């Protein structure tokens, strides 16, 4: 089935069964491999993308129901790898193996778009759904706080 979808402000046409999860369309058809496969059942968050700005697990999202919604992946989060969350992630030096981090960054950026001044508890709550097998949780928490600081500075 021919499906049109908008990813990172570009329109693509793919020919796949409608129930194919967005994750595999991104990775195998569009070769946007920054979005990662971790579990395929919505449990780890590695596949997180934004759908009209809302955090979404692409491994559970049939490509046919996306319709006109705009998808943003890690590759399209910012022009120059300079979204406050990306900057913070590098400043705090979060990654170990790095495999989960695209999903973490997408989750954090969607969360901060909704809540510009989160408490520590809210940060933990927002990031609790993303597994990091290397257990970089302490740095993830600090990096989200740092991203808040960076955003405040740049919007002043």
């Amino acid at each position: 089935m021919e499906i049109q979808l908008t990813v990172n402000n570009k329109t693509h046409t793919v020919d796949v069964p409608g129930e194919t999860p967005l994750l595999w369309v991104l990775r195998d058809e569009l070769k946007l491999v920054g979005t990662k496969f971790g579990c395929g059942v919505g449990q780890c968050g590695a596949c997180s993308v934004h759908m009209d700005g809302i955090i979404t697990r692409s491994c559970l999202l049939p490509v046919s129901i996306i319709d006109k919604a705009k998808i943003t992946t890690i590759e399209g989060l910012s022009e120059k790898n300079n979204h406050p969350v990306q900057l913070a992630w590098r400043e705090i030096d979060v990654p170990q193996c790095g495999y989960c981090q695209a999903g973490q960054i997408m989750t954090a950026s969607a969360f901060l778009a909704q809540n510009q001044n989160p408490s520590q508890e809210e940060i933990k709550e927002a990031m609790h759904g993303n597994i990091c097998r290397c257990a970089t949780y302490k740095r993830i928490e600090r990096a989200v706080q740092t991203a808040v600081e960076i955003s405040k500075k740049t919007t002043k």
Partner: protein
Amino acid sequence: MESTQHHIDRKTFLKVAVLSGTGVVFGVNFLQSCQSKKEQPINLEALEYNEFNAYIEIALNGYVTIYAPNPEIGQGVKTAMPMIVAEELDVAWDHVRVVQANLDTKKFKRQVAGGSQSIRFSWMPLREAGATARQMLVNAAAMEWNIAPEKCTTHQGFVVHPKGDKKGYGDLVLKAATLEVPQKITLKKTEDFTIVGSGKHNVDNFKITQGDALYGMDYSQEGMVYAAILHPEKFGDILVSVDASEAKKVHGVLDVIQFNNNIAVIGTNTWNVFQGKKAVKATYRENKNKEDSDLFDNRMEQAFESGKFKKRGGKGNVSEVFAKADQVIERVYEAPFLAHNTMEPMNFFAHVTADKVNLKGPIQTPENTAKQVARALKRKEEEVHIEMCRIGGGFGRRLIGNYVIEAAQISNLIQKPVKLVYSREDDMTAGYYRPKVKYKIKAAIKNNQITGYHLQEVVVNNMMWPKLANYFPEGAIPNTLFESYRIKSNIKTAPWRAPVTNFLAFAEQSFFDELANELQIDPVQMRLDLLEEAEKNKHDDMEYSPRRFQAVIKKVAKDAQWGKTKEGVYQGISAYYSHNSHVAQIAEVEIKNNQPVVTKIYCAIDCGIVVNKLGAMNQAEGGIVDGLGHALYSEQLVKDGIAVRSNFHQYKLGRMKDAPEIQISFIDSKEAPTGLGEPTLPPLAASIANAVFAANGNRLRKQPFAKNGLYNS
């Protein structure tokens, strides 16, 4: 600047070659090195430096590139190892980059990521390599200036004339390459280090944060097909027949093949082959051996009753002191199977053709795996090529290259380039688990002294190694005996982060807490006293240093204000030596809603010189939270031959809200660096159990705690 004179080992650093127009390459033996990312600016084959395992290139613009063969699995060697070279070479850190050399089992040696040993083994070779190259650059400049080399100094990529004139390394390399490799070099004094001991960011951070294709899972090429695999659902079953008629009707499925004891579904993308897999019908001949966690428990109990144990080590006369003891204290500690659950599931690319076997993907043991592939396909070893990439977690799982062999076999059968991708379920249920194990520990007490220590291990498949008998409490207790009993099983088991010690440390360090309680001694003081005794009996075979061990215990006790906590805060201590590093931890537990909750971990580490402070902190914190999550929640169960937990909705891992506050101290040291990827994990679980005991009197002896103890967060 004072320096250390040093005669270099000619086997470590020998040959220099000029590259056409781009710079100079030095052949080096790092023994164990680092690394990732595909870029191939130099032709290593043409250099024919067979005796080396890594290369340093200095370009005409003064930039330094390190080509190194070893895998980066998140342990940070890709950043830390070049830091060591840059330090002795005396170049600015931002002029250094690291490149993954393509794998070649004939050119490189010991290409393994495992055992937290990379930095330890390569410390001196890396320093010598940097210092030797620096000396040659100095000699080249001195010749041009017509002065003695001793008159010159270096600074951040320049040789400096005593009058202040400067020459950049890039302008000197071609001349330097024509000079003799010096026999004698000066290494920096550790107090003069500016790069080593600082904090450098992970060199791949930029690529990771923008989603570059760094991992094996991300790889694809023109004409490539995808494969999914079906292993027998039950351990030990034999595949009899396959009905692929329905599977072949699934959209995008190209073929279904049978090989060895497995079935592969070939198709046009990962999702299609996963769907195809669900439609395959297969029949198996059942393994009569019942593999079952509960049955293992029974057999383990029986082994403790009447099993014939194999001696693994020990000293003195244990039976005599137990016979004469005033009191014998005996406890049993239990651990389940654990899956590795690397975040990136197993996968590998393979393209088998008439003249080559090309492979690419995540593997901790490329050399050995290439050999196994050659054997499996009946090909020559030199026809097998492995290209490496950044790896989405190892934890020991990728020491076993079974999925690489599978990918090669599939490509061999279908004669196409193929990427084999495991689903999370394949990954979690097909084994290579941390072995299920129980330890029974007995202590003989005479006149309030511990006179004998007897540890019995009952384990599925993989026994502890004899060397562990030379860890603590060797030297501290005069009579010791270590014995193992092995239960053979079809369940596949393998090393898991900090093999054996990941649970042995829990058993031992919980047991000493129990002893301290029985003997009414402060648990910190008890450890310090035992180590004092060990210091008196120190010998060459002893694996640990009692003094360094005491120092981390004292440090953590001071940091945590042991014995002086606020009301409602309870502490537990645990200390363990592994991978040549000494670690002590204190957990703090508070009671919330009638349940103990871990609120803070203090940790003191002696791993010698800390090469990269930022990376080291990350490793140490990760090891602590990993240890906590697994101790609290994780287990794989086997029922009727089938692995029960198949994905993260059933297999619980530690998450964000479980991570307590963490405070880490590194002991200031001038000793050569030792392991850090693993050592903070083994002691952690006992620190929690000991703190929970202090809080509510419940003794946790069985993992995972959340299920078996009263801990419930």
